[in-house]
């Protein structure tokens, strides 16, 4: 049997085949389907229309519903959409619903999924959100789908997929203290372009990747979609296994696999991590790469630290390291991805102060856990760019209008770079603060 990549192995197993070829169309069994408040109502509509008003989802414990996009808003339609989810969950008796206003409320779905034990190596996770690829950090196949596909999965537990060829990105060496996973993935996207991995799997490998903690691996996989990738994936190691076991209360068994020696990669890219420099993506595309030292001094109006890709504890630890005992020069918004992260900001300390105290003392504003201004949203969204201002952000996308105003300019960067820039009001090299 031909050597297979990790993505091919997972897809083959879920199609009941011993192997698959890139380009082949296959039907697969889905392990987890996730939806949220923006795409859930449409998905539920498709499900009802096609399977009947009284139809039941294919497996109650495999449907996970996480409202996260438009939560802390007075917008009536947005609140109505959460009601649509509530009604559906009640009718269907779904156990995995993280409702707004309840103790179970989580925040951003891509971080909530692993925290609540819904990510496992070797599985197929589909979600109605393009950043569903984040879960590839757990050695599973995870990708974003639309309402129609999700409605189909909801009723049948199956979907058709075209097996993607795999691109392999190898990172060698340990990350210097001034670089983060965000710098790595922005460098990759700058190299291959925001369509460079269209229809392809992006597998991240090498000792530089396995040295990263789970959250940093999620940052890498999260932005596979920004290169057009179908999925991002990192083979599970002991760190993954320990994390997953600590989170999955049901202790569901899982399969740990890796790409075979001799597996066919469409292309391979090798990076020596030590030679990389802090990177930003300039407006208005995630592939508009520039090195921080080339654009330092660019004046800014706002800094934003949050989202699935930039609102995890690792991100806030990095930002706090720079902001501790100092004051920001521009409006700085801090949005924890989940309520668990928000709680940890109140307890985890650096130099005797909690991270929350460090941010507040520095003059930053802290919002509630949700997607918030990462994708603009209703006009009362915390941190939204309602004017044509210039923002540096730890989020993942900067096409025109992404964070609100069409003429606003968004620079994407690591939490270290964003924090350093918040202190000066201009794009600033984190190496000035971190040796």
């Amino acid at each position, binding site marked *: 049997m031909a050597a297979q990549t990790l993505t091919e192995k997972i897809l083959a197993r879920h199609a009941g085949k011993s192997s698959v070829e890139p380009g082949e*169309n296959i039907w697969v069994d889905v392990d987890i389907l996730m939806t949220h408040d*923006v*795409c859930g*109502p*449409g998905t*539920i*509509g*498709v499900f*009802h*229309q*096609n399977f009947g008003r009284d139809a039941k989802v294919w497996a109650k414990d495999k449907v996970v519903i996480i409202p996260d*996009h*438009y939560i802390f808003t007075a*917008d009536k*339609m*947005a609140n*109505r*959409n959460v009601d*649509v989810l509530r009604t559906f969950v009640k009718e269907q008796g779904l156990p995995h619903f993280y409702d707004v206003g309840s103790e179970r409320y989580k925040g951003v779905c891509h971080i909530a999924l692993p925290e609540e034990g819904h990510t496992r190596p070797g599985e197929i996770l589909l*979600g*109605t*959100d*393009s950043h*569903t690829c984040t879960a590839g950090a757990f050695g599973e196949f995870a990708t*974003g*789908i*639309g*309402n*129609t*596909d999700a*409605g*189909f999965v909801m*009723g*049948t537990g199956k979907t058709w997929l075209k097996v993607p060829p795999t691109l392999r990105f190898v990172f060698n060496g340990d990350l210097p203290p001034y670089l983060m996973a965000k710098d790595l993935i922005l460098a990759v996207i700058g190299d291959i372009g*925001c*369509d460079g991995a*269209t*229809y392809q799997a992006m597998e991240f490998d090498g000792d530089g990747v396995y040295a990263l903690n789970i959250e940093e691996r999620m940052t890498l996989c999260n932005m596979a979609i920004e290169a*057009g990738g*179908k999925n991002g994936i990192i083979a599970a190691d002991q760190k993954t296994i320990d994390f997953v076991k600590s989170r999955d209360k049901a202790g569901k068994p899982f399969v740990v696999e890796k790409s075979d020696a001799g597996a066919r990669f469409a292309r391979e890219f090798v990076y020596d991590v030590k030679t990389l420099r802090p990177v930003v993506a300039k407006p208005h*595309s995630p592939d508009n790469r520039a090195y921080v030292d080339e654009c330092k001094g660019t004046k800014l109006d706002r800094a934003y630290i949050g989202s699935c890709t930039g609102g995890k504890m690792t991100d806030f630890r990095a930002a706090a390291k720079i902001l501790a005992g100092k004051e920001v020069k521009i409006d700085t918004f801090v949005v924890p991805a989940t309520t668990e992260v928000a709680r940890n900001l109140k307890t985890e300390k650096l130099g005797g102060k909690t991270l929350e105290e460090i941010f507040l003392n520095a003059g930053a504003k802290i919002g509630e856990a949700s997607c918030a201004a990462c*994708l*603009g*949203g*209703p*006009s009362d969204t915390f941190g939204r760019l309602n004017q044509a201002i210039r923002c540096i952000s730890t989020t993942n*996308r900067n*096409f*025109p*209008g*992404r964070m609100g105003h*069409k*003429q606003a300019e968004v620079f994407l960067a690591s939490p270290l770079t964003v924090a350093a820039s918040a202190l000066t009001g201009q794009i600033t090299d984190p190496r000035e603060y971190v040796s």
Partner: protein
Amino acid sequence: MKLEKIIQGKAYVLGDNIDTDQIIPAEYLTLNPAIPEEYRQFGRHALAGVPAAQGGLPKGHVPFHKGPTDLVSDFQIIVAGRNFGCGSSREHAPIALDAAGIKAVVAEFYARIFYRNSVNGGYIVPAETAERLCEKVCTGDELRLNLDACTMENLTTGEKYSLRPLGEVVPILEAGGVFPYARSKGMLPA
């Protein structure tokens, strides 16, 4: 929508990387496409995120809708460059184009999820061309696509171009989306 093999209409020309936030900005995603009246409302907001200078090439500054409250556009075919529909997985993007009266997009290639949503929902035809037509067609040109012959004719200039065959998605588009397709194949009860 059932697949029409001949699609004729006025072109609206855009550039590269027209992402889903430009096709339908996030602030309008509170509309629920499962409700027919709200589905229609998406038409009004289609392409609302495209910066004015980049809308209606080559000149730009051509509004997609005649009036600010119009649900349907005067244009029926979008011609664009590379990576059309990149960004989010929101199915509201092809829905907004469909609701605005767009029948087909002709681009060099598409982001995967947008392409899949267009086909599976049967909203619009995502046609592809090897040529960079967004630099050859002008907004307002009258175009005719022939999906059997895989051609696109610019009736305004007389130029003729070839389209890539739609290939394996034709049966899904012909059925009107993945659900009718699956029913016709016996994969779902009729």
